[in-house]
């Protein structure tokens, strides 16, 4: 894929639309699991548009300009991720860095508003960052197997040796947990649990909210793409239609996982994720010792 500007714009629009639709589908499936008809699958898109035309309000307690900056940062962060991952097929480490920035955005969003709910959401995002970032030990395992962390090299490796999903199931599982925690209504979604209204973005309204929504749609797309590219293989990402189909499938699985599990308590969520990260670390150690 050549990286002309038109292509990048195209990709961005694609990511936004597909991400929104998948999130809508996710919501619909969870509703069906719970026995409700559920909103139409364009509901997420409608939300975004609705917020986009509403006026912005600033809480009197907010700390500006951080309050605005985080929302803008969110979207720029995931756009960068999209370009680096899909267009340039660059390093996975940079992707981790970007994921980390997303956590900071959540935190800043929550704390800068001065609202108690937002604050709790922000603090919980710190908890979850402590747990989710170690899951990236996956990258170490991948590096030990493929001797590179560039996505293009990983794709090449897979086209020769076959998909990584079967070679490193534990790592794939850990990355899948990462996807689960990023999807809405997830058992690890302590950041946006319903007990704290809508978590870190409680106080963000109007245009800012819509920007965050856009960013989340792109984020969902990008993470799914990375999972598919890294673990399933190059033949899936070679054609956008197949990618789309696999993404729909993954969304269905994620929706079932999220619809059927309860929300964990904050510390339990952290420690459960840490346990999985510990498993991955054991896997990494095993590979290190076996590999020399």
């Amino acid at each position: 894929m050549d990286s002309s500007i038109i292509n990048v714009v195209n990709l961005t629009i694609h990511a936004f639309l597909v991400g929104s639709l998948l999130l809508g589908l996710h919501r619909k499936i969870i509703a069906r699991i719970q026995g409700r008809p559920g909103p139409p699958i364009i509901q997420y898109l409608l939300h975004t548009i609705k917020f986009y035309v509403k006026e912005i309000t600033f809480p009197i307690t907010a700390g500006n300009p951080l309050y605005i900056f985080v929302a803008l940062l969110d979207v720029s962060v995931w756009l960068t991720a999209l370009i680096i991952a899909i267009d340039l097929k660059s390093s996975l480490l940079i992707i981790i860095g970007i994921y980390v920035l997303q956590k900071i955005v959540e935190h800043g969003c929550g704390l800068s508003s001065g609202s108690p709910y937002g604050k709790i959401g922000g603090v919980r995002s710190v908890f979850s960052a402590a747990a989710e970032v170690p899951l990236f030990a996956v990258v170490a395992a991948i590096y030990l197997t493929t001797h590179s962390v560039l996505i293009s090299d990983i794709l090449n490796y897979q086209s020769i040796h076959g998909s990584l999903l079967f070679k490193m199931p534990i790592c794939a599982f850990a990355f899948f947990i990462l996807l689960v925690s990023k999807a809405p209504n997830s058992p690890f979604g302590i950041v946006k649990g319903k007990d704290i209204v809508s978590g870190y973005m409680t106080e963000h309204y109007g245009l800012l909210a819509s920007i965050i929504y856009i960013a989340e749609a792109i984020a969902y797309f990008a993470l799914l793409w990375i999972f598919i590219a890294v673990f399933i293989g190059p033949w899936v990402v070679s054609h956008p239609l197949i990618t789309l189909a696999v993404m729909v499938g993954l969304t269905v699985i994620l929706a079932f996982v999220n619809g059927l599990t309860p929300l964990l308590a904050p510390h339990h969520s952290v420690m459960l994720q840490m346990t999985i990260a510990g498993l991955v670390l054991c896997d990494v150690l095993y590979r290190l010792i076996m590999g020399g």
Partner: protein
Amino acid sequence: MKKLGKIWNYLSKPEVVPRIFSIFIALIFVFGLLMPHYLNPDQLYPKPVPHSQTLKTPLAPYDRGGVPLKVPAKLKSQYPQYEPDLGMITAYLTPVANWIKDKTYYFGTTIVSTPGGILDEILYYTRGMDTVLESSILLISFIIFSWMFFNKD
């Protein structure tokens, strides 16, 4: 499962964390006891045999050769290509140091510690960034200390 949850909750108290952390580190360090440790003979900035320079040179134990301001001392540094004046600082002695050097054999450390000498070479020239950081760490901690002291109430 309930027990596991209790353990997880216990781990999340701030008072417990340093203790858990130190036990964790201790457990890792146990492997260090079992491992063979060896020193690579190919080191940067090597030292002569300990106590071998005593009473032989006034700069003991920091005599690394070189003539002050003329011939640089021979050092093995990481990137000699980035350091045009490597060894000159080691060979430099201040007038005070020169004066002491002529008098006695026993004040090597003092002589070397006045500007010039191997440690100044490393601390200011080849690894100067370390010293910037260490002094800023000291500065920061001092600021914290004095602020908290003044604003106790």
